[in-house]
């Protein structure tokens, strides 16, 4: 299996909410024991002790279970935000985290359009906590991620993103009355490596207005940020030029005043508008 932009496809219609993926994730990543911390709204949600979780949704067709985890965006906001490069988009497709570099500024948590990165507030040396798509396990051991391996119902599968997209569309076409004709994660914020198909209208984020546009978050900041070198040079030039012009004019005025007839004093500098 070549490691080339690996992805996960979650078929919500197949998930029974058994949470085998959650316990497999906890075991493989040696996550801490769940506790009722003051800052947790619900210990059942994503937290430093849960990199993936199952959320129950009530739909017109009955109960559905949606797995939440890092979406591993194709153009990740967190990677763009990270001040020291602790978060990286690896060639395998996973957004990985280097705890040795992280300074704990938490801008990734602010920038993430899915509110995925969590913080281990309980630790003296707190770190960002999020799904790594089992990067080491996939690249070094050649296995599939722990959650995928644990799933007894084939609701979550692992593979190359292009193939999984094709597979998703195949499933949508095969049973058009079963699925909503949409692959979540195909286009949102420039596309994500975790894809969803479902039989109801999924909301993958918790915001009041849901993430719906295809602009990658990094584009929003870089659109401005890329002009900064020219702003710097431009501002310096304008300020330097202004200084030079006014300085010269005042010097000439002063010289004129001292050589010529007695004028009012030269220090008044009448250049104020």
């Amino acid at each position: 299996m070549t490691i080339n932009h690996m992805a996960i496809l979650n078929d919500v219609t197949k998930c029974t909410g058994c949470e085998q993926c959650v316990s497999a994730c906890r075991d493989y990543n040696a996550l801490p024991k769940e506790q009722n911390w003051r800052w947790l709204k619900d210990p059942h949600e994503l937290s430093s002790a849960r990199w993936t979780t199952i959320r129950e949704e009530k739909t017109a067709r009955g109960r559905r279970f949606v797995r939440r985890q890092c979406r591993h965006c194709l153009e990740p906001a967190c990677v763009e935000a990270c001040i020291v490069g602790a978060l990286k988009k690896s060639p395998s497709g996973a957004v990985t985290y280097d705890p040795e570099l992280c300074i704990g500024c938490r801008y990734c948590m602010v920038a993430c359009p899915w509110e995925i990165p969590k913080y281990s507030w309980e630790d003296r040396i707190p770190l960002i906590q999020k799904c790594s798509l089992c990067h080491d396990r996939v690249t070094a051991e050649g296995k599939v991620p722990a959650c995928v391996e644990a799933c007894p119902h084939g609701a979550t599968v692992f593979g190359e993103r292009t193939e999984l997209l094709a597979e998703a569309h195949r499933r949508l076409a095969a049973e058009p009355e079963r699925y909503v004709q949409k692959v979540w994660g195909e286009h949102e914020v420039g596309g994500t490596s975790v894809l969803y198909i479902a039989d109801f209208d999924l909301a993958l984020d918790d915001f009041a207005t849901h993430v719906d546009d295809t602009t990658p978050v990094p584009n929003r900041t870089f659109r401005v940020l890329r002009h900064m070198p020219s702003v710097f040079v431009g501002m310096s030039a304008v300020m330097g030029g202004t200084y030079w012009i006014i300085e010269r004019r005042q010097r000439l005025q002063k010289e004129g005043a001292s050589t010529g007839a007695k004028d009012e004093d030269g220090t008044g500098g009448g250049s104020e508008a």
Partner: protein
Amino acid sequence: MRLLTVKSILWFFAGFGFVVILLRMLHGVGSVVALNDLLPWGLWKGGGVVALVPIGGAGFTLAAFVYVFHWRRYEPLARAAVLLGLMCYSSVAIGLTFDIGIWWRIVFPVFFWQFHSTLFEIAWCIMLYLGVLAFEFSHAILERLRWTTILHLVEKVSIVFIILGIALSTLHQSSLGTLFLATPYRLHPLWYSPLLPLLFFITAIGLGCLTITWVTLVTHWLYGVKQPLAPLTGLARIASIVLGAYLVLRLGDLLVAGKAGYFFTPDWNVLNFWVELLLSAILPIVFLSRRSYRESPTALFWIATAAIVGMSLNRVNVAGLATLSATQATYIPSWAEWFVTLGILSAAGLVYLLCVEHLRVFPTIGGAQVEGAHDLGTIDPAGWHTTFFRAPFAGARFFSAVFVAAVGLVLVLLPDSAVFGARPEPTPTRGPRSVELQRLEDASADLVQYVFPIEPDRGLETQRTRALLLDADANGRYVLFEHERHGDRLEEQGRTCAACHHQSLPFAQASSCRTCHRDMYQPTQIFDHGAHERSYGGNADCPTCHTDPTLPKTKATTVQCKECHPAMVETETLVRTGAGQEQSTLASGYKDAMHGLCVTCHQREVERGSKRPGFGECSACHRDVPTITGTLQRLREVAPRSTPMQSEGGRP
């Protein structure tokens, strides 16, 4: 006397901040802040960094006015503005150090470069600009030291640094706005705008004019010196023009973006928006447009105060407050956060006053006025306090006392989690409820269904049963536990009630789970030393259990429970009480206990060939999978019509 009072207050708050910073270094940031995963940036980032940087914008604004535009009228304020910038940016640097999770890594951006990160750009700009400010202010220090040769050198190149400082400020003042371009979904539409960088830059100029005005007014008032009104009036006019431009841009942008619909909707955010806009722009513009207000120190003070409060509110809104409704996060800054914010600002204020007193910051303040302001006035020379607060260093002695008092007081005021580090919240377990159900069994498909409420005409093949509804942590997610059926199954296997009721209270047959497992997550102590002591007559009878008085009194050297309580059930499961086993008096957390017991047994059933789908999975108990609980899909609705179980007593 007013200087003494203000300085005492500053020293007091500095003491508060000092303690919390120490505690934060000891226990980590999570123990002192009220932040959470939904709101990772709060008072320290919003108020301490994003709002304080434009307040320090006075430095570059005045530097541009005086040294680049040669507006000599403002020269008396230039150095004070640079010092204000220096204090603000130092506070930002210190605040940021303690806000980030791993404070000693604050220097990492120097070594690990990320050109695509807005925060990286801001970090570098602030770092470099702090150097520029220090350089600009070095004039005052060199002057005082009379190092004239170096002073001349510094003056020669200073224009380069001033222009560098202006360019750096342009970058990071606007980039603070760029930061929040990444949060289109979090930030309320009234604040989110592609113009954020521009708005942040413009307001930094307007606010800069008013912060230096405020500082000048307050400092002159403190030292009882006549206010230098001429430059202040000019600054007020510039501020009103700049803030006017800001108001037009901001409202124009909202109108063009079609967000006018928000303006008058009854919503907390909209109220916040209008309060912010009124304080930060509308009121200052209206009042500063009148000459009489521009020339009155009192009016100027209140207008500048409103603008500073309003503009800080703007930054705090963008950085977090206006994201609360979109993220449904809850956040009220903890006392510790307030103390650190106030503490750092107070310390900066004290350093500012120190510089004002000893260097030529304001040409109008120095020498005699400073001496006069420190006059303690009518303190009784024979009073008790004069013995301690006496010259020399009367002031220093007094302020030290205030500082120490603050340190003591804050340790008393802070919650335990801040002083001793965060601990998990206790989650006391709640007892089960009992409900009568109708049970339908389809043996061929190994399918069980429950009906509630009972329908008598369902036929004879149904049987009534009593089930327990378990929701120990009261989160509304119930587990249906059919007690009788579990008992029957154990009996079939030749096991006893003790398989689950592995240990009961003395004189009780089967204590319920939560008798010992009293917390959802944390282990609880089940041995009641006090009760034993009382029943044996106080201290007199320690040797009843601690048989050998020469040995240290530990669990290992103590009589085993079973020796006195022979009826105690020999455990099949987790707790060890029998002879030869290590004695444990800790009951594991409720969740661990249940999972340890239920999951083990369920998985054994699966291995033995249970046909029920998903029998060994979490959903067997936690979800209403149709094959298991059938029509009973609304346990939450059933629960109110069930009866709470009484926990039976056991102790005599």
